[in-house]
């Protein structure tokens, strides 16, 4: 089980960034507190007459397997509809809308978030709502049934979007339907019992598994008091963590390296996705991989994939590579959407440019460009109270060292061509999963590049 690290946050809280302009960025301090039940509170005093509260429970698609795929989304939807014991169903919605507030319960990859934003005069009501939802969700059969129907419809409609299909299928193959590869189905979601959904909520909305971020125009002592009053009664429970089987994912990638998974859809454009498992966020080589990805396809129009596929050849509008490191796993995906007739060519360009990263040292000018871009845009990670809080909460969740952001740029700046090539080889040597969604006319071109496996 994961345990939150004790963070020495005051070092950062009392810090400011000095931007490339030389002007000081006077960060509002982030104040932290730990409640007796283990809840971590992060607070920023803001100048706007509004209150934002985000309660984050450690759970999400990364925690799911074949037997629980879609549970996080279903749970969030059910409570969103059913509200809490004190604010049931329409009472909750009437209350939020009457305050002119923004409210949501959303399931992400690693967190289920209850968020509320209201004008300052409604702060007590907002905190009451979040606390009661966390502690006393009004999970009843009628709301669960409605939630199941809505989630089932969203699963169906996902298959209207070729990019959604391609990404989900690629992740499912890499991760074997677990964690990053969790693939909810209508039948699966409809099979979950009320008791099971309730139990999942109860287990994960426990003090040691919760962080709260808040910004408002009141002093920290008052904010802390308001939160202690409302959230201290939650049971402490235990911190949860998802399993991750890196070897299994690497085996899946290796066994599919010469295959092209094809999902037929009668549309004029193909979506081509290639991908593999990436390391977790604490991996020492993550900085080199981040710079590599920026150069390959993360760095907008100046990246290699964008240049080779879009700028020089006019073959696609959307081209990108994505590298995401999480607590216990990571994923790399590169994609492009192109006319069916050029799907084969675009696939070759994607894999060819990825291959170059493993075979040739990246020229110094490209590395300098990527490092400068990452350095000079770093300030934007701290330009709003929400961004500041999000970064603090990420450090806490991922158990990163308190000086993570202080040393981050030094580590980026220390990356060199040799490291990029070594890390690229490690990342890509097991192979790549390939998924293509498009018209069947693309199959002959795909067959020239690998064994085509048709997905249903």
């Amino acid at each position, binding site marked *: 089980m994961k345990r939150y690290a004790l963070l020495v946050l005051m070092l*950062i809280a*009392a*810090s*400011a*960034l*000095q*931007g*490339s*302009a*030389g002007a*000081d*960025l006077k*960060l*509002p*301090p982030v104040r932290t507190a730990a409640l007796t039940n283990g809840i971590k509170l992060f607070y920023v*005093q803001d*100048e*706007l*007459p*509004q209150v934002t509260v985000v309660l984050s429970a450690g759970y999400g698609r990364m925690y799911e397997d074949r037997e629980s795929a879609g549970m996080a989304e279903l749970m969030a939807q059910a409570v969103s509809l059913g509200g809490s014991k004190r604010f049931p169903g*329409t009472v909750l*919605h009437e209350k939020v*809308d*009457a305050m*002119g507030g*923004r409210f949501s319960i959303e399931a992400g990859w690693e967190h289920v978030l209850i968020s509320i934003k*209201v*004008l300052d005069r409604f702060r007590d009501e907002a905190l009451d709502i979040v606390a009661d939802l966390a502690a006393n969700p009004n999970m009843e059969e009628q709301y669960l049934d*409605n939630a199941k129907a*809505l989630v089932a419809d*969203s699963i169906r409609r996902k298959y*209207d979007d*070729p990019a959604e299909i391609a990404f989900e299928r690629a992740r499912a193959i890499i991760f074997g339907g677990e964690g990053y590869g969790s693939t909810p189905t209508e039948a699966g979601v409809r099979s979950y019992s009320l008791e099971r959904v309730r139990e999942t909520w109860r287990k994960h909305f426990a003090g040691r598994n919760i962080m709260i971020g808040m910004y408002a*125009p*009141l002093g920290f002592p008052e904010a802390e008091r308001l939160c202690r009053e409302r959230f201290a009664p939650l049971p402490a429970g235990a911190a949860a963590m998802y399993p991750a089987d890196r070897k299994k994912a690497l085996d899946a990638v290796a066994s599919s390296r010469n295959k092209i998974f094809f999902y037929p*859809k*009668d*549309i*004029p*454009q193909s979506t081509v996705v290639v991908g593999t498992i990436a390391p977790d966020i604490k991996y020492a080589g993550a900085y080199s991989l981040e710079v590599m990805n920026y150069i390959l396809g993360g760095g907008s*129009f*100046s990246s290699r994939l964008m240049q080779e596929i879009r*700028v*020089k050849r*006019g073959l*696609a*509008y959307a081209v990108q590579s994505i590298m995401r490191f999480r607590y216990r796993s990571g994923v790399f995906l590169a994609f492009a*959407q192109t*006319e069916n007739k050029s799907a084969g060519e675009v696939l070759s360009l994607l894999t060819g440019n990825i291959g170059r990263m493993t075979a040739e040292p990246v020229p110094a000018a490209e590395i*300098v460009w990527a490092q400068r*871009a990452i*350095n*000079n*845009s770093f*300030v*934007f990670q701290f*330009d709003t109270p929400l961004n500041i809080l999000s970064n603090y909460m990420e450090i806490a969740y991922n158990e990163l060292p308190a000086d993570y952001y202080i040393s981050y*740029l030094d580590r980026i*700046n220390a*990356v060199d061509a040799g490291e990029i090539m070594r890390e690229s080889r490690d990342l890509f040597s097991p192979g790549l999963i390939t998924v293509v969604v498009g018209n069947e006319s693309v199959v002959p071109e795909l067959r020239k590049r690998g064994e085509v496996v048709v997905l249903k």
Partner: protein
Amino acid sequence: MKKAMMVPALVFIALLASPGDAAIRDAGVYLKKNVVAKKLKNGITVILLNRGFAPVCAFEIAFRVGSVDENYRTAGAAHLLEHMLFKGTDTIGTTDYAKERVIQSRIEAVGETIDRLKLESPKNARLPELEKELARLQEAQSKFLTAEPYDRIYSEIGGVGLNASTSRDKTGYYIELPASQMETWAKMESERLMNLVLREYYLERSNVLQERLMHYDSLGTGLIYERFMAEAFIAHPYRHPIIGWRSTIPFLSIEDVRAFYRERYIPSRMTITIVGMQDTAKTLALVEKYFGRIEQRPEPPPVTAMEPPQMGERRFILDFESNPYLVIGWHKPAFPAYDDLVCEVISELLTGGMSARLNRALVVEKKIASSISAWNGAPGARYDNVFALFATPRPPHTAEELERAIYAEMDRLFADVSEAELVKVINSIESETVFDLETNKGLARTLSYYQTLYGDWTYAAQYPEMTRRITVQDIKKAGARYFIPGNRTVGVLRDSRAAGGAR
């Protein structure tokens, strides 16, 4: 790489700020007190707001120019031109413009010839050779180019969110930068507004076609939206898709796009908005120095086509490999007409939150729909427009059932709307005005929107007050006047797989 080579890195130092000292009480008062607005001699409007704790700014340059300013021949030109503004100038993005220009001229001549011949006959015997020549010329030109120079330069100096957008009404160019890079921004942006070079035109035109395939031709919801607007507007240019028709994009003439740039990107239609940490007096001097160089040009001819009264329901079905979808729209006046505000309140009453009428009745209680949203002001807001509803029927219910249920709920609203419901909507509008202050980018976009479209940024500050005047009677009158069968257009996206291919 050695650190000495870096642009000065960000380092942490110990300093504290006290943001609570200057708490904002009212969003409208705050904006009126702090926004600095000025019109330059050449007609450009500049809007500045110093705010925030981070030394960063959000920049937006907007033109009151969009696809509504096109005709059938030039449909898609505004959007393609927006793409071309990232290709550089005679000094940015080229290593030797004198040599490159010769090749560029030849590319344009060959490209225009190819288009002309293809339109006459795609089988013209000269085409293969001309296409080879175009490819050779493009290759030769590439040797002089720094590809995507704006992206390269901005990314290196810490820019984030470099982007642009074209709507029916407006074209905007956005970026957020460290405040210290303001002069670089002013130089780069003013250059592309004076000395643009339409290089790599034919490659970018192909990319736009790919963009169309992605957003429209491969997505049922994209296709039905496009078809809906073409049905709802039979005369007004709002009927043209922003991106252009699939048949027009491959033949968009470079000369037409250049003429569009010269005639439409003029100072009197331009707003510069900068929100973030700055000395506004210094910013204004900088903006005058660089953008004051742009010469005034005459106003282009206005849009003359007006949409005739609808005089009867319009209805269509679109078959596509997609789950069903429903779009309904009613014609109504555009902002700042009072009735537009009334319709905005109606949109909130119907879909503004989970307790709103349609969400509560059809998603939560009757379970006929999976989602419903409203857009008061589709597809644009410079001219009279449409109040549109977008709805997804929930199986086993059909789009037709959902449509009937929507009308029943709307009838109920116009019969029994209450004062309490209006208060809820006003609270929501007031809240959104405050929430909008949270980011430089969001605030810049709002201020720029009202100034560019309506010539008055203060609408952003006045909006909650304007909506407070609306009464229950106004809602009922609007229901009787606009939300009637003879004034509506209905589009149904039908799953082509459901029919099993049967005729």
